[in-house]
């Protein structure tokens, strides 16, 4: 069996690819559900019901989508320039704690109109800083950033854990390790009353659209794509490689940090070490399912959020561990990789 590069890739094929990948992943997980002695169709129906069956569940799914869009954008923008940022999880936590710290220590008395943007910036800056370290190690010492960003996740979470144990500990939390809360003015306005759905979703979608245009239309977008596709040709054409990568890292780390800040300001108001159920890692899946397209990220994030929220409900209704959602999401990443491959190659005997 040999593979042959396709000369033309049809647009339809590109659009259908993620759908095929998701269907394949659902089929494989369905098999695992069946092994557990339940009906996959019933399970998926329950997942759908759990995610969109009521006003509460639908808003919950959308609430969960917001951080996933942002961590998905973090991965998508970085991967496009072949900057392997696997550290969104750590950047998320640093962004979250930066927002809590900035609100409680610096800007707490400011009205929301000024405070909220400042906390966004604080969160984004924290995420950026964490990603600039591995980028510097790559540019200076040629250290593969995959491993360093992965390792820094653990460092960042321990650092956050240390802060909420010490200087940022909430004195009123009866010894629970949780950080001081952001001030009430810093809490993001709700989009719908009687729900947790907050402004963060709008911010995430707007940023996805903006970054789409930045990538498609600007000099920076072209440069970062060139840097990712063929670094030596980019250098020959005068693309400032290091500078472009630093910008990419700032955007990518910024998105992940912002995701953390928004989660704190939108949902619970304070930081714990359980703030993220793996948003950083799921962001990678979101980005790949979207084929690194920023607008596609929005849809992929909603799919992943649907799986997570729906699986919780399904798990309560049936005796299937909710981990099936993580399994499906991971399988959809693998299926997407294979699907992308077959948009580029055909089988030839």
């Amino acid at each position, binding site marked *: 069996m040999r593979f042959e590069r396709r000369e033309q890739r049809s647009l339809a094929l590109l659009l259908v690819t993620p759908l095929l990948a998701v269907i394949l992943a659902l089929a494989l997980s369905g098999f695992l559900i069946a092994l557990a002695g339940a009906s996959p169709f019933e399970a998926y129906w329950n997942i759908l019901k759990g995610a969109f069956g009521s006003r509460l569940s639908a808003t919950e799914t959308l609430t969960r989508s917001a951080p996933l869009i942002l961590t998905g954008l973090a991965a998508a923008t970085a991967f496009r320039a072949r900057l392997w940022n696997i550290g969104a999880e750590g950047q998320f936590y640093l962004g979250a704690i930066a927002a809590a710290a900035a609100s409680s220590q610096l800007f707490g008395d400011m009205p929301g109109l000024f405070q909220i943007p400042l906390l966004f910036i604080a969160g984004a800056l924290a995420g950026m800083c964490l990603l600039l370290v591995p980028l510097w190690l790559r540019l200076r010492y040629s250290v593969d950033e995959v491993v360093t960003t992965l390792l820094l996740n653990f460092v960042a979470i321990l650092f956050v854990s240390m802060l909420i144990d010490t200087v940022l500990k909430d004195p009123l939390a009866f010894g629970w390790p949780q950080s001081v809360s952001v001030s009430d003015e810093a809490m993001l306005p709700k989009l719908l009353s009687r729900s947790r759905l907050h402004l963060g979703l709008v911010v995430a979608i707007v940023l996805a659209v903006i970054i789409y245009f930045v990538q498609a239309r600007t000099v920076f977008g072209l440069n970062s794509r060139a840097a990712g596709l063929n670094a030596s*040709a980019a250098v020959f054409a005068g693309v400032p490689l290091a500078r472009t990568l630093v910008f990419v890292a700032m955007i990518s780390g910024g998105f992940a940090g912002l995701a953390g800040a928004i989660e704190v300001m939108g949902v619970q108001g304070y930081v714990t070490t359980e703030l993220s159920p793996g948003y950083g890692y799921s962001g990678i899946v979101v980005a790949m399912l979207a084929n690194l397209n920023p607008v596609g990220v929005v849809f992929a994030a909603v799919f992943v959020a649907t799986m997570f929220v729906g699986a919780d409900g399904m798990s309560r209704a049936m005796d299937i561990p909710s981990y099936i959602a993580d399994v499906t999401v991971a399988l959809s990443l693998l299926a997407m990789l294979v699907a992308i491959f077959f948009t580029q190659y055909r089988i030839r005997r």
Partner: protein
Amino acid sequence: MTEVALEIRSVSKRFGRIVANDNISLSVGKGEIVALLGENGAGKTTLMNILFGHYVPDQGSVTVLGQELPHGSPRAAIQAGVGMVHQHFSLAPNLTVLENVMTGTQNLWSVRSETAKAREKLLALSERFGLQVSPEARLGDLSVGEQQRVEILKALYNDARILVLDEPTAVLTNIEAARMFATLKDMARQGLSLIFISHKLDEVMATADRIFVLRDGKSVAERKVGDTNKAELAELMVGRQVTRPVRDASNPGSVVFQAENISIIRDGIERLKSVGFYLREGEILGVIGVSGNGQADLAQLLSGTARRNGGTMNIFGEAVGDLSVAQTIALGIGRIPEDRNHEGAIGEMAIWENAILERLGEYSSKGFVDRKKGMAFAKRVVDEFDVRGGGPSSRTRLLSGGNMQKMILGRNLVEPKRILVAAQPARGLDEGAVAAVHERILEARRKGAAVLLISEDLDEVMALADRIQAIVGGRLSPPVQAEKTDSRQLGLMMSGEWSGVEEADAL
């Protein structure tokens, strides 16, 4: 003819819509040297890959010493006594010479590598054929010529009776090449059969006993070397009358670029050692030399990607520091990079994006890319430089090598340039495309551009350059006037012998 060592019978191979080999037959006798002559893309390499089991043919058979080979098994080919010397050596730079040679020669499941025995055998072979190597040396530390010896020894170590050499002289100076052909003739006398693949008529005429000519995947002729001549072979190979453009008399203008005592150290190695040269309007300076002697850094010097460690540069009479890419573009320097796919273009990007990438400043405003203007520029490049195979918005990967090169030439020369740096501009192109590229370079010269042509092809340099300097081990020879030199003298210069050359008019 004596005993037949190898017979290839009606082999065909298709890749997608391209027919790479169409019903080709060929035979080689024991102790015979056969040349396989053809242009790039004529199907020579495909045929040899089939012989060696890398590819499975769609039809046909390969028989070695009376025994038919199974398709698609390099292992069977090796065991039958076929050895191959690849154009891009199949060697691992991080391993030693002995390890490179030994790989795969023992049963993989034996519990111990028989290193001492292998070493003995290697040294015996190296003695017998006069191919000196040191078994313990790390391969990456050897010169290109030495690496080729290892590649040949590797084939001999496997008891090859039939040796296939793919473009063996592409990386050698004429002197090294002459020595290698002497070795090959010696091998043939010792009973080995040899096939060498080439598109160089001189070496084919000088070395081969019989010649097979391939064109467009078909075998078009078989000639004994005594029954043919270069002119006939050239026509058979190309299939049509291609005339390369002729350079008219030179009429150089003023000096636009001058470099003195330039040194460049990269990765801890001194790539350029105090070199000097100058370029004049309406004149082509040819730099001839075997690849890997500092050409890359010489080209980078004028392409804005090099950092000097010493020396001075003057452009249009003004001293300049290290140039950035943006500065070279602003100064009106056109740049044809050595490696099209690696540096010249990004395959996954559109043609229009590749056309404007190096001058994004002109094709953008306030940070936004001016797509319309870029498309218009790309359309001019495609139309005026006859780029076939795609429009401005097609992916660049779809272009053939020749058309990609025309696109690169076009983006540089649509607007006239004062200086043009062309590194190996015709490498790997077929005859038609070579002529087109040469014509464009001569046209730039006619319009007054000062051209730096860096090439390892002697014919190309003699045809295009007005003045010639040789590059060896990071040093440049003094320039010689093209009319006052010949291939013999240039060959000597390429191997570092330039005492007593008659220097072209010094400034």
